[in-house]
């Protein structure tokens, strides 16, 4: 066993001499796993897709030995905790984590850290200090939505808020940003709030349910993946379409383009790019390569304005979400930016 390890180390060293630059060979025998808690919407599907592409290419290039993706069958913290513990047993060197809960996985994450496994949480992050966190400034995203509304509707009015999956940190952060924005622009008032679970069908049902009880609504603040459903619900109820902030989904962009062509509809679309999984992958690779990576990293969110609508719509596959795939260089830039 020892000689095999030694052999592998020698090989790695030899390979290291060849490609010393990207530190890729230092991780040639490392195995990375993705622990994902939910796959039931277009964003997560695009995320898994991007991750699979990045991972496949990296494994083919010999950057890492394996980069497998696991998704829990139900969005439950106990199940994901068990999944993380299984990954420790399977001997993965790093776990990329999109967490079902910011806190309830801390026990399992600590077990992983204690076993020498690097844990990199992204998108929905965990609070355990031993893990790395690749977060989007979701609070800022919520605030920008209201700022944009304030430029378009200076006289203010009633807003409907569509929230995400209850109990997930992302949902809290975006909502907090929206409420901060409202505190700043006091001409707006949130008259209703529903959970759309970041899925069009859920959002449509939820909005249709609350609409009859609402006064006139001038704007809808959303979290992404729910704007098209909201538009459908407004149309079905025969109410005028308010200014709906969109979340980069292809169906939302398509609807936006149709509305723009029909009646000059203008809005803003913003969301975190599902490609953040590929960023997490490269950050994980850098950590395994022995780079000094700060525990807290920030990625910018992807904003689509009226001007880039057509180009964004062209590059987004049907049923998916506007995306960017991050590279090793992007990861290094993000790491350098956080230092």
């Amino acid at each position, binding site marked *: 066993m020892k000689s095999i390890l030694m052999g592998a180390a020698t090989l790695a060293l030899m390979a290291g001499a060849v490609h010393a630059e990207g530190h890729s060979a230092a991780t040639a025998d490392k195995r990375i796993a993705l622990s994902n808690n939910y*796959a039931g919407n277009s964003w997560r599907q695009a995320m898994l897709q991007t991750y699979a592409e990045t991972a496949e290419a990296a494994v083919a290039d010999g950057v890492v030995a394996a980069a*497998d993706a*696991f*998704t*829990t*069958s*139900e969005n*439950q*913290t*106990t*199940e994901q*905790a*068990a*999944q993380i*513990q*299984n990954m*420790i*047993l*399977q*001997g993965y060197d790093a776990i990329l984590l999109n967490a079902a*809960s*910011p*806190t*309830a*996985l*801390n*026990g*399992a994450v*600590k*077990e992983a850290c204690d*076993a020498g496994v690097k844990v990199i949480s992204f998108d929905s992050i965990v609070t355990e200090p031993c893990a790395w966190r690749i977060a989007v400034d979701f609070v800022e995203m919520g605030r920008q939505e209201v700022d944009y509304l304030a430029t378009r509707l200076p006289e203010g009015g009633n807003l409907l808020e569509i929230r995400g999956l209850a*109990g997930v*940190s992302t949902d*809290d952060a975006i909502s907090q940003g929206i409420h901060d924005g409202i505190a700043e622009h006091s001409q707006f008032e949130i008259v209703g709030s529903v959970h759309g679970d970041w899925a069009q069908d859920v959002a449509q049902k939820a909005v249709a349910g609350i609409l009859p009880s609402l006064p006139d609504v001038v704007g809808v603040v959303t979290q992404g993946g729910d704007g098209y459903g909201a538009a459908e619900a407004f149309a079905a109820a025969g109410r005028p379409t308010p200014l709906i902030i969109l979340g980069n989904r292809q169906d939302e962009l398509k609807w936006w383009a149709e509305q723009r062509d029909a009646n000059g509809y203008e809005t803003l679309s913003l969301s975190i790019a599902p490609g953040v999984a590929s960023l997490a992958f490269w950050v994980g690779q850098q950590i395994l390569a022995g780079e000094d990576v700060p525990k807290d990293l920030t990625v910018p969110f992807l904003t689509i304005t009226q001007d880039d609508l057509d180009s964004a719509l062209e590059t987004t596959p049907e049923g998916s979400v506007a995306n960017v795939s991050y590279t090793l260089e992007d990861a290094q830039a993000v790491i350098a930016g956080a230092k």
Partner: protein
Amino acid sequence: MLARYRILLPVISLAVLLCLTFWMQPRAMSYFGLNLLFNLAVPIALATIAQMMIIMVNDIDLSLGAFVSLVACVTATWLNDAPLIGALILLGLIASYAAMGAVIHTLELPAIVVTLGMSFVWGGMALFLLPTPGGASPSWIRTLMTIKPPLIPMAVVAAILIAALTHILVIRSKIGTVLRGVGGNTRSIARAGWNVTALKATAYGLSGLFGVLAGMALVGLTTSADANIALRYTLLSIAGVILGGGEFTGGKVSPVGAVIGALTLTLAASFLSFLRLSPDWQIGAQGAILILVLTARLLLSRKGAAT
């Protein structure tokens, strides 16, 4: 099937799954590995015992998952910040479980409906207490759940302790025997002069007690809580009882089997993930394992009846 053979099938199912897991993932065959495989089974085992107390008196509890979630929320907030108030709340929860049993019996309400309704009450209270995930585990619970006893990992020690204690309580003790009698034949127990309402309240109270222990153990492992943390436990606990040789006809339960059933279910999930089965198939595969074991039991009991 004779009662003493009832335990055989769960033991065999667990042994087979364990061998398969060790074969797939030799790393699991260690102190560290066993603990990782089974530590999340400890709260499930406690919840399964809680469910067993209800199934024992011929009822079923659909609120258990929500109840354990609520207990987890209380443990991570009140019990941590103000231990005395926290303990009082937990005692109150056990008492309300006992009251629920008494109400179900006196008003002759179907338990399935009452507990389903109560699940929304527990769920609402949990959300009220902890609208966003958080809280922290009291340090003594964390210490207890991460303790490293010599030779045998905590999870295995805990499973053996739970099985042994509940075996004594349910099978050997006087009160346990009478409670099983309530499930088997309520009328004869009533005619023998027992107060059935009090007995049902006792069974539900015991269930509440084990539900509280399950929630506390869970928080000890996860270090914090959220309002939906244990929703899966309702179905897992019912499956665990049945997998462990219990029957819906009341009175026929096996505490040791229930603990083994909980371990088997936990292991089945890990085994499927080691198999690299797609998550879309995992729930179905878990169900298939359950059906497989139940079919085996049916075949065995038919054979037992024929000879």
